[in-house]
């Protein structure tokens, strides 16, 4: 399936996803879906740079965490409205991306080197956020005040006490809207010169340069867009959980989550996100039943699954489905 096909297929999911409240009332299932969509937003952000641009980042937590911190701190310290801080959060993530991007791409860092640089920056910010206590509250983290007044729900961008419908579905729709924005951005990108040039750079950077593509500018544009989308995930996280700390913001978990979905989904990120969380929940259940709570066991299993997928289905689930589709339709020819 072409990349366009995959985006369309992903887009078609939105109608049923929007209609979820009509059928699903269980809070647990809504949580599951929210988590899935959250991962999908992270994944789409990563995908702009990784899938389309061919630059694999191991430190996307950098953009997630920066956006989350800005979103939290501007509310916490200055009392600004979350709808205002949002823009600064996105801008902040993009600024950081511009810095990392400039350093990496200006000096031609690709492949493993680029992956390591992004990892290093994420870790650096992790340490910095722990140390600059005056700025970030350090290890204690930033705790936002809970709003319990339903009338203030939208103003404070908090839906936990916003009445029967919104308290269940408010954040679900938030993340769904964010995912739609992410998909719309990718859809737009595919139809523009920028998108075509980005893919060309991924396929063969020298050939692209010889054809008039400014690889540096294009990659920079990609990392900026990637960071902006990832920032949405950070904003959602802060509003939903009202808490952020160095570990959550810049720890490796978010970086891994960001790249898992596209790779396992085969750059069909929503599919991948579903798969990850489906498998994740199931393995937790299985482990819980047979081995009781052993921290880390599910991560090991995750690692095994990732290795298996990369080994046997390098194009991920979407790739497997695409293969099956191709085989089914090819039979007509021979």
């Amino acid at each position: 399936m072409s990349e366009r096909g995959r985006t369309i297929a992903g887009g078609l999911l939105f109608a049923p996803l929007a209609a979820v409240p009509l059928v699903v009332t269980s809070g647990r299932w809504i949580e599951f879906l929210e988590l899935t969509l959250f991962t999908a937003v992270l994944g789409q952000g990563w995908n702009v740079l990784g899938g389309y641009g061919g630059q694999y980042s191991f430190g996307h937590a950098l953009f997630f965490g920066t956006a989350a911190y800005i979103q939290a701190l501007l509310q916490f310290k200055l009392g600004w409205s979350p709808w205002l801080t949002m823009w600064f959060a996105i801008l902040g993530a993009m600024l950081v991306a511009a810095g990392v991007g400039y350093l990496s791409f200006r000096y031609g860092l690709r492949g493993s080197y680029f992956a390591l640089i992004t990892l290093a920056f994420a870790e650096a910010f992790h340490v910095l956020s722990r140390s600059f206590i005056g700025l970030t509250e350090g290890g204690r983290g930033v705790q936002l005040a809970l709003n319990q007044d339903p009338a203030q729900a939208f103003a404070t961008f908090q839906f936990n006490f916003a009445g029967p419908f919104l308290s269940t579905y408010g954040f679900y729709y938030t993340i769904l809207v964010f995912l739609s924005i992410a998909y719309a951005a990718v859809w737009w990108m595919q139809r523009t010169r920028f998108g075509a040039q980005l893919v060309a750079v991924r396929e063969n950077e020298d050939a692209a340069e010889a054809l008039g593509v400014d690889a540096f500018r294009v990659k920079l544009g990609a990392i900026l867009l990637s960071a902006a989308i990832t920032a949405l995930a950070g904003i959602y996280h802060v509003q939903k959980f009202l808490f952020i700390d160095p570990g959550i913001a810049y720890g490796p978990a978010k970086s891994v989550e960001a790249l898992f979905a596209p790779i396992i989904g085969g750059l069909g990120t929503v599919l991948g996100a579903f798969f990850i969380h489906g498998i994740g929940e199931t393995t937790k259940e299985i482990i819980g039943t047979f081995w009781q709570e052993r921290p880390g066991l599910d991560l090991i299993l995750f690692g095994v699954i990732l290795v298996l997928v990369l080994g046997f289905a390098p194009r991920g689930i979407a790739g497997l489905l695409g293969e099956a589709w191709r085989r089914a339709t090819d039979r007509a020819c021979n």
Partner: protein
Amino acid sequence: MPPTGRATDVLEVTGLCKTFGGLRAVADATLSVAAGEIVSLIGPNGAGKTTLFAMVSGFLKPDAGTVQFQRRDIKGLRPHAACRLGLARTFQVARPFPNLSVHHNIAIGAHTRYRRRNQALAIAAEVAERLGMASRLDDHAGSLTVAGRKRLELARALATRPRLLLLDEVMAGLNATEIDDIVAALRGIRATGITIVLIEHVMRAVKSLSDRAYVLNHGRMIATGTPAEITRNPDVIEAYLGHGAAARLADGQIDA
């Protein structure tokens, strides 16, 4: 070799040098190409021809010398900037964008001049038509044969609407009929006003296509002139052609 700076020069290279470690890849290379000419750059493998192209097109920084494109100094300009100015270059080993269709491959070239996607795709289709690739527009670039890839390289470069085409061994791996096709295509391209510089080993093409040729050996220009002149040049025969090929070419046989 004294530079021949003429008002009609599209490309003027003077005293270009490049050294890698201890190896003098290109030493004091000078050449000039007038508008509408087809010039061949020939020489043994490892003579520095591709290095010369890389310097002219911006992929390598020359250690010394100047490169003037349309009377404008372009030394040190990044490849994409040189391309925007009208200097397009192909690679010795074809570099298609493997996961894209032929159509999308060529469209990347068209995007140099055209921002809008549908415009670029239309131009790409037109270029493909001109080069006889219209039937393969939707093919995966990765599935093309050697000849197909070479043609795709040419098509992509052509789509950038160049003034000067630098073609690196565009005939390698093609049989006689395919070579004739490309030669005809290049003649057609020149007729539209594009200047062409070819790195080639296929003497058949060099003879029938080029107005002039330069011969590079161990990084130095050892001869220049019309194809007939250089195939009779004893230094060239010694270093590059070999007596068998030289004799066959002198006899008028088309294959070397």
